[in-house]
């Protein structure tokens, strides 16, 4: 059951409510009426997902008729193979993975360093000014700068996944610095000072003392980065010039014409593109959820 999935990871995570054996809060009666209503409403989420799975397992003859909600029979596992070969899934998957890994690592590293330097030198106007300067990005959505940016990336040979990853890092820099600096302000300086007395350099202090303390907020930033970069369509579509190096979502877009004739293969391909984030979410739900909570409340 899904109930088990959400309580599965019992590793020492961030201290959110531990809701282990009883899914129902202590005290009071269960509101069955509301349970039924919520369960019915949840069909709005379940039905499209069932639909996608059912379509992906059908034969072409079966997809052509009816509402599409009928149970797939006989099950056509071959659709996944066909989609895999048609769209060159391994390549697109690697591209998505490359961009996502670079973005996750880059966003955590670049913004935590910048935020730490800013917070610990807040007394200098240069650092306060830098903070304000970086915050400009909060007001620049990608569409606003897309036209000159695409040209810029092409002119310096970054019209590829590396360029996309760089832009992901920089567009999220403002928000991430905001998150990190709010967190760093809550860390006592004394820890760092004692490390310095023990002979740590600035870099060592960061690596050995600060970075481990930042783990919870780094997880938040990393989760945001993972979801955004994996699912992004706009930037890779516009920045990456060579269609061979496109990410999974963009590949779905590029193959729309060939998909219209074999819907079942299309849905198999969609499912494969959706699966990674869904699996990560089901495994790490409590981190994702607490990460979003922390990110929104700052």
């Amino acid at each position, binding site marked *: 059951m899904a109930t088990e999935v959400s309580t599965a990871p019992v590793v020492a995570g961030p201290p959110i409510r531990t809701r282990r054996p009883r899914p129902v809060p202590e005290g009071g009666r*269960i509101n069955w009426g509301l349970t039924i209503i919520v369960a019915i409403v949840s069909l709005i989420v379940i039905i499209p997902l069932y639909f996608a799975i059912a379509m992906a397992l059908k034969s072409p003859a079966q997809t052509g008729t009816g509402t599409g909600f009928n149970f797939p029979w006989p099950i056509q596992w071959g659709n996944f193979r066909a989609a895999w070969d048609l769209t060159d899934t391994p390549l697109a998957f690697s591209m998505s993975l490359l961009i996502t890994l670079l973005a996750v690592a880059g966003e955590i590293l670049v913004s935590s360093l910048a935020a730490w330097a800013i917070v610990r030198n807040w007394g200098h106007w240069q650092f306060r000014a830098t903070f304000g300067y970086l915050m400009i990005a909060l007001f620049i959505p990608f569409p*606003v700068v897309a036209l*000159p940016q695409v040209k810029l990336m092409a002119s310096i040979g970054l019209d590829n996944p590396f360029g996309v990853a760089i832009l992901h890092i920089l567009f999220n820099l403002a928000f991430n610095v905001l998150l990190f600096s709010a967190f760093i302000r809550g860390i006592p300086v004394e820890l760092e000072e004692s490390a310095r007395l023990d002979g740590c350099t600035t870099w060592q202090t960061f690596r050995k003392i600060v970075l481990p303390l930042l783990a919870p907020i780094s997880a938040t930033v990393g989760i945001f980065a993972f979801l955004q970069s994996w699912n992004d369509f706009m930037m890779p579509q516009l920045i990456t010039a060579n269609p061979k190096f496109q990410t999974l979502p963009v590949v779905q877009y590029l193959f729309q014409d060939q998909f219209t004739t074999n819907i079942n293969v299309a849905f198999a391909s969609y499912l494969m593109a959706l699966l990674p984030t869904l699996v990560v979410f089901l495994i790490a739900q409590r981190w994702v959820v607490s990460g979003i909570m922390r990110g929104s409340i700052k």
Partner: protein
Amino acid sequence: MTATSAPSGGGPLGTVKKIFFPVAPAYLLMIIPAILLFTFFIIYPAIQGMFYSFTNFVGYGTFHSIGFANYKAAFSDPTIRDSYGFTLLFAVVACIVTNVVALALAIALNSKIKWRSGLRTIFFMPMVLSGLIVSYIFTFIISTSVPIISAAIHFAPLESNILANQHLAWLGVVFVASWVAIPGAIIIFLAGLTGIPTEVYEAASIDGATAWTKFRHVTFPLLFSFLVINTILSFKNFLNVYDIVVGLTGGGPGTATTSVAQTIFSGFFNGDYAYQMANAVIFFLITLLFAVFQLSVIRRRGGGL
């Protein structure tokens, strides 16, 4: 604020050096690359774009300044005007739908129901899915399955594909965009709800408050700041709507659901480069206006979100 613990290492202190290197070099190494990259990859193209918007640049070749001609033309261009009309209408309606539904679901998912964590998991799932792919799935459902089912139960409004209807297609975009955005909003509301102590409700119950009065006078006021956060986050995202429109309608039928982002990107084609840059600058000013407005709302409410 935290006192600066600027360690030694400044070396010989000239005035110039003091201004540019006030602290240990390590700190500068941590921040200067970020500043340079940010300037080169985001600020520089932004300024460049603003500059081009006053020229007749088509993306290559020579160009010269034409003053505000692009802006004038943009304001009287029906394609651009319609894209703003659609985007703003969509963003406002989707924002309302998302917040209302998410608030209701968050309260339901926070109350004493069976399978609470399982149901939460289900409702959170759309959040992690690619908007484009979700749109492709819904395109098929709305255009093929829904009409067949509607015809079978004689439900006239959905018997034809609403995505092919010029006046109704935007509702499809609202539905799918909200479907994707609601989980994030639920989570933020849940964060607010868990912060409300149960004693408050117990006290209200003792005073004989009904469920509605409890919501009206306890839950809603205490959740208001979370409503503000949600409104800001979702509205910002909805203004930049792109994936879902591309996946669902491609901007059609005709240009009925063409978003501002799509219009701007059309500047890559048919020599509209500088012209669409002017559009982008207008879009930037509108986003900025909303951002300033939102910030002032947050400030007025004490900022202590």
